[in-house]
């Protein structure tokens, strides 16, 4: 056995690896913990949560006072309500291609348009449209060609706190990003909710010199920011119901016929996600089969449903049409009713009742 000195060049370099956390990591954890936990987690957490909320509100109030802003619908809809968060500004028209890609062409009059930049940061990304009804919340983002919105770090909050919803994203032909949460907003009163869309990172594909005479990175993750705005919730659902178990652009389907004598099979289909959705690892938090009392019966560890298509093999034209499918199986449980429990990074969870005959 060779014993190495503790402070040679390699260990010294390892000790110098940056411990700078991603922006808002601690804040996001506090907000998620507060939103998930009905029981108060302590005076300090509540104070921190209040502080986290107060700062953007203060900024929003300053912006609101200093800048004249108006909100407009694309069509003859009504104005969004009061302003506890930044009010949507006069937006430019949303391209028809975006509305088609978002499946909103039949309700275009109900889409609120914005022209709101990210709260902080130098990234060229803007919120340009939003729609919410009883089944979904759709947001349309516009950004420069060098920027890619990553869906994994996207988190949505409304008047009731963290929105536990599946998330899908796709790119319109215009390059605008369509983000769909399969849950409605929950206004505190009336039909208008304050909304915060948190983007902890964006992927910036601009090559960056490595300081050694070359450019070693094709892309970097860039600290992003958030959008604070208000959005009306339509009283009825006028569009088809989105897939209820859609997670980051992948939909999980449970096929009862896939119950074999020995196994339970879960199939995941890619549903038109962007390239980065394919590159992401959408099921690292794992899937479990829960007993009726809520306890975990069988656990499938993280990564079992991961998409692992190499990014280099995908092109912009092929990403959306890839017939990509992942299949995982468990040892078959005994007969009875169970809950198939999906847990997602960022605190999102989904449950689907199943019957094992």
């Amino acid at each position, binding site marked *: 056995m060779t014993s190495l000195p503790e402070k040679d060049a390699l260990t010294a*370099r390892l000790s110098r*690896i940056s411990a700078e*956390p991603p922006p808002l990591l601690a804040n996001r954890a*506090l907000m998620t913990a507060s939103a998930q*936990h009905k029981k108060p987690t302590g005076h300090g957490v509540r104070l921190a949560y209040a502080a986290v909320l107060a700062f953007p509100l203060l900024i929003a109030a300053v912006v609101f006072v200093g800048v004249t802003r108006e909100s407009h619908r694309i069509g003859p809809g009504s104005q969004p309500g009061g302003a506890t968060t930044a009010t949507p500004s006069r937006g430019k028209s949303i391209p028809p291609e975006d509305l088609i890609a978002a499946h909103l062409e039949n309700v275009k009059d109900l889409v609120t348009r914005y022209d709101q930049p990210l709260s902080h940061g130098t990234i060229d990304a803007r919120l340009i449209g939003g729609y919410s009804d009883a089944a979904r919340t759709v947001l349309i983002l516009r950004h420069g060609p060098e920027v890619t919105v990553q869906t994994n770090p996207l988190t949505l909050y409304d008047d009731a706190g963290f929105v536990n919803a599946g998330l899908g994203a796709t790119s319109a032909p215009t390059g605008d990003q369509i983000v769909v949460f399969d849950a409605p907003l929950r206004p505190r009163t009336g039909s208008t909710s304050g909304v915060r869309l948190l983007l*902890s990172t964006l992927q910036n594909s601009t090559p960056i010199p490595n300081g050694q005479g070359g450019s070693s990175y094709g892309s970097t993750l860039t600290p992003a920011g958030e959008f604070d705005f208000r959005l009306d919730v339509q009283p009825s659902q006028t569009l088809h119901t989105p897939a209820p178990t859609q997670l980051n652009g992948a939909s999980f389907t449970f096929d009862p016929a896939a119950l074999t004598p020995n196994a339970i099979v879960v199939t995941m289909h890619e549903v038109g996600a962007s390239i980065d959705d394919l590159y992401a690892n959408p099921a690292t938090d*794992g899937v479990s089969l829960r007993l009726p009392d809520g306890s975990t019966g069988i656990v499938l560890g993280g990564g079992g449903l991961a998409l692992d298509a190499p990014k280099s093999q995908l092109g912009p034209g092929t990403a959306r049409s890839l017939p990509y499918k992942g299949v995982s199986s468990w040892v078959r449980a005994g007969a009875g009713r169970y809950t198939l429990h999906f847990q997602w*990074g960022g605190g999102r969870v989904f449950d689907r009742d199943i019957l094992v005959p």
Partner: protein
Amino acid sequence: MIRGEVKARRRTYLDAAELCEAHAGVVYRFARMVSVSDSDAEDLAHDALVKAIRAYERFDPQRGDAPRWLWRIVVNTARDRNRIATRRHLAWERLRDWTRAEAVVPVEDVAVARLEDAELIAAVRRLPARSRVVIALRYGADLDFETVGSELGISAAGARMAHGRALNQLRLEFRKGDIHDQPA
């Protein structure tokens, strides 16, 4: 000095928010080393911090200091997500390692010093699971060998030996990558 580091060194916290802020950076650094990607690492760090915040009411300072309590949560979260192998698997890997001859591969100090963080973490991610975890606990979480050993179910001396083997494997990774050929 990174925000919160002073409080982390002081090891006393007013509440979960302060604990979270003080250790978010180190938790993320650890998560980067044991995860397959940075976005996965952020998810892991986020979820571990959420668990810690939610459990902070039950933390009893009489039974140990807050950082050690936090790291137990972080490591368990990583283990739950299969980012850290089980103790049984680690024991099997250790047995397998015993059968392999070890060789120290010299790596130029200058080249090592020039490595970017991302390159270093990428090399760590390519290591076998056990070595990756040892490096992540020692340098990502900045834990001493006694605590590293405790997390792996081995003695402090065993952790030190595993650490030596992991460093050797990391040097081999650099040798495969020919880091000396990078432009100056």
